[in-house]
């Protein structure tokens, strides 16, 4: 199987020759930036640099996928949020202390949403990668969900308070923002993406499983119906309490955090949705050695997790050796099994 075939089959829970190593979120590091002369923040804004840096996940690390959308701010920048672009060694972030909207009526989706520098950069980077790598590797795009977009545009605290005080307005806001998720997603598919990561940060620390069911499950079902490629839902944190609802959405996969054990997560979702994950970032990939990385990879493989991946965007200072230990361990595990 090619890497692309392997990833797409695993996303549909079909047989694979070995478990694919996937990155629904970024595997960019400062050393890889040097290797291909594509540093942050430029690699988030210039399509050639974005494509070049993203390709290293496949060419240098040995992953089965390429994911060029390193950050979570591309659409928010196009919406008018203020962005802290930072330097090579840090992530661009939205200045959420300076929200651009306060209520439903303020929402104004610009007509240039898909031609803005920071969204068109993603589309062009995907086109470049598709041209360069053809069908040998899975190209994964990213379109942010409405809950995450609402955090960026309204501010985390304000939006969460609104969700308590005014559920109706909250639902109407999410409903209005969903077109951004769909339109940007479809544009990436047209540009050549095989699958899309859909981060929607109803994270375990701030939002309950019941909240997910009330506000997001039906929206996510709608995304699965309207977006014409496999979707990998990404939510950080302890999410075991909402995995049942997530499994009902019809999405292809759930990218899960290391706060959830692989075996307990598999028990909840069964065969209804693939799981992608869940190598711990701060404690394992960033701070420990290849042996510790391998242990976590094996836990996922033993549990039957369909695609092995870091749990989230990896820290930019992560060592190349630890990242390369992921595909090596997967290969070794399958070799030993066969």
């Amino acid at each position, binding site marked *: 199987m090619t890497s692309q075939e392997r990833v797409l089959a695993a996303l549909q829970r079909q047989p694979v020759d070995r478990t694919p190593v996937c990155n629904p979120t970024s595997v960019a590091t400062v050393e890889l930036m040097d*290797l*291909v002369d594509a540093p942050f923040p430029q690699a988030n804004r210039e399509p050639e640099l974005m494509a070049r840096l993203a390709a290293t996940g496949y060419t240098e690390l040995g992953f089965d996928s390429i994911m060029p959308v390193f950050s979570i701010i591309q659409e928010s920048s196009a919406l008018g949020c203020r962005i802290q672009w930072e330097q090579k*060694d840090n992530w661009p972030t*939205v200045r959420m202390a300076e929200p651009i909207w306060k209520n439903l009526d303020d929402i104004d989706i610009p007509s240039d949403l898909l031609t803005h520098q920071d969204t068109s950069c993603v589309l062009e980077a995907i086109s470049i990668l598709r041209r360069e790598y053809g069908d040998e590797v899975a190209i994964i795009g990213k379109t942010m969900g409405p809950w995450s977009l609402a955090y960026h545009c309204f501010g985390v605290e304000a939006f969460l308070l609104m969700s308590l005080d005014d559920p109706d307005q909250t639902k109407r806001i999410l409903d209005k923002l969903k077109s951004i998720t769909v339109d940007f997603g479809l544009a990436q598919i047209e540009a050549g993406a095989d699958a899309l990561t859909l981060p929607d*940060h109803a994270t375990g620390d701030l939002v309950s499983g019941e909240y997910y069911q009330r506000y997001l499950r039906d929206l996510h079902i709608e995304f699965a119906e309207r977006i014409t490629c496999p979707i990998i839902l990404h939510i950080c944190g302890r999410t075991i309490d909402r995995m049942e609802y997530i499994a009902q959405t019809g999405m292809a996969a759930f990218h899960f955090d290391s706060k959830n054990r692989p075996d307990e997560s598999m028990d909840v979702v069964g065969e209804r949705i693939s799981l992608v994950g869940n190598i711990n970032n701060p404690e394992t990939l*960033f701070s420990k*050695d290849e042996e510790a990385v391998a242990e976590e990879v094996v836990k996922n493989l033993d549990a039957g997790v369909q695609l092995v991946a870091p749990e989230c965007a990896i820290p930019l200072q992560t060592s*190349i050796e630890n990242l390369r230990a992921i595909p090596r361990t997967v290969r070794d595990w399958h070799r030993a099994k066969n």
Partner: protein
Amino acid sequence: MTPISDIGTRIELVPMDGHFHDITVALYRQATAAGAGLLVHTYSNLDGAAERIDAIVDAMAVLAELADLPGTARRVHFPCGEDHDLAVRRAFLEACKFEPSEPLATAPLTIRDRKSGLTIEVDGLGEGQYRVRASGDDPEQQGPRRVGVIVNGLLKLGQMRRVSVAASATDVVTEDCVAFACGCSHDALVGLLLQRAPNVRAIVREQEAMAARGTLSAPSAQS
């Protein structure tokens, strides 16, 4: 493009080298036929990057008295054969910070303690042992406390240990003597660590801040 090859275990990283185009520079520990060696490496292909790496190795060699590992290309080691892991990482970080236009020289075994105004001196006692003492006008009797602070700093930065000094009549553990486990003298390294020993908390804060940079938080965890 520089190919990625197995170059050992990365033990320290400077994500942006302020003295050369913000390239990323890392320190690797490598197993070689001649023993464990230290490799300073960058993946940058910029013109001058290799020379910058050479300059950092040169600075480490002087600042911490590292020697070339025989039979290897620009791998260095401590002649005592020990890793001195924390100390060598500090030496690497200091070498990367070192202003290239300044002349390279080992740090003296004495500093002016800014908190007390006292002079702190470290005397080599042989066999890797050092005694810390304070001198100067000390109306507030700060000397013993400041010596204790410096000793703690050396213990933490250099993975040194407290020792009892044989010259002492009772052979009790003293509060002012430290030693490297290898039993060898490392005067340059102690001089280097001494510069930072008065304020280890600042070093720890700097390390924590560096480690936190580049880690993406969920929007709910961002400010």
